């Protein structure tokens, strides 16, 4: 975790004054935010608004991770990228856009926004972060990120969106279940629909990414999230949210259970039988 800022500067007090007024946050909460580092896995429809609001709220360090480049078809929902960024690495494009919100932080921590090159093997050095947000777009990455979080003991704020629906859960948090507790076996590749196949209304990941930002901020500030062992489902067509109580941590879970068989990262593309991208669905084995 980052070195504590001893106190808020006068400029910080002005900048964050509207949230400092909140009894749920206050000066201590703001200092907690400035000490917290967050890794955002995926700089697409979810990662863009998430990065934007975390940076604006004063999170101490953001890691932005993506394997992909900006394409024209991203722009309707990935609001940190513009036409001029087409062909650029998404993580780099997002980092440049987000720096706008963090000028003050850069003064005391020159690494406050980091551009992390995706290697398809999330490195343990990436897990210097305190909280991880899964904003990825494919099944192998979701298992990879989950296992990395369980092994390194980090809470995972996970969201997803497709068509006009969204889902959100906080995994591996305060003794609650992990992603594998819920989904011990990956879905058959032919049952997985991604945004390239199924489409997505851009503002749906917008809402879900903002919701992720809220839960990250609640955890980082010390308030705590209310979404551990909960699934929040959003139906944009009916404008309806629903919260579901999930199963507890499973003693037989392969990664967080009592006798875990997964104690280091494995080959997730082989495990899932699909590639860690939303472009080409099936892996040719």
């Amino acid at each position, binding site marked *: 975790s980052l070195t504590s800022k001893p106190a808020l500067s006068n400029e910080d007090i002005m900048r964050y004054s509207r949230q400092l007024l909140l009894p749920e946050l206050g000066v201590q909460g703001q200092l907690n935010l400035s000490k917290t580092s967050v890794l955002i896995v*995926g700089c697409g429809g979810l990662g863009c608004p998430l990065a934007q609001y975390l940076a604006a709220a004063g999170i101490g360090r953001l890691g932005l991770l993506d394997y992909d480049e900006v394409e024209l078809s991203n722009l309707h929902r990935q609001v940190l990228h513009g036409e001029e960024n087409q062909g650029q690495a998404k993580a780099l494009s997002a980092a440049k856009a987000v720096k706008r919100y963090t000028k003050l932080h850069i003064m005391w921590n020159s690494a406050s926004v980091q551009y992390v090159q995706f290697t398809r093997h999330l490195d343990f050095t990436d897990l210097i972060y305190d909280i991880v947000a899964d904003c990825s*777009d494919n099944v192998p990455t979701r298992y990879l990120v989950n296992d990395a979080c369980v092994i390194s003991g980090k809470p995972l704020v996970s969201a997803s969106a497709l068509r006009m629906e969204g889902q959100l859960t906080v995994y591996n948090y305060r003794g609650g279940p992990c992603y594998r507790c*819920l989904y011990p076996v990956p879905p058959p590749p032919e049952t997985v629909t991604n945004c390239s196949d199924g489409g997505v209304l851009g503002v749906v990941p917008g809402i879900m990414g903002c919701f992720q930002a809220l839960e990250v901020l609640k955890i980082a500030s010390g308030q705590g999230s209310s979404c551990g062992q909960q699934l929040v489902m959003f139906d944009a067509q009916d404008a309806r949210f629903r919260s579901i109580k999930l199963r507890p941590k499973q003693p037989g879970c392969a990664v967080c259970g009592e006798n875990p068989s997964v104690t280091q990262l494995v080959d997730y593309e082989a495990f899932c039988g699909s590639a860690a991208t939303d472009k080409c669905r099936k892996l040719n084995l």
Partner: protein
Amino acid sequence: MAAPIAIHLEFGGGAELLFNGVKEHHVTLPSQSEPWDMKQLLVWIQRNLLKERPELFLQGDSVRPGILVLINDADWELMGELEYQLQDRDNVVFISTLHGG
């Protein structure tokens, strides 16, 4: 004999696309000698509602990996899964996990 029971079925996350895109179904399970359980409900759904490609919904005698089942707004794992005995007016949701971002 157990009396017929009315239950409310919901499909989401794309699972509704296997049911002509219809998200909500009010159904009545007929009277039978034993109480209805989830295992029998899955068979009933396959025979009466699921018109094609059952492998996208079922695997063996349960739902396929990646579909979450909720009984009265709780994960079915908390309720006994396949053995859960359905009650009149129960609400059962089948939700396909989303992976897009």
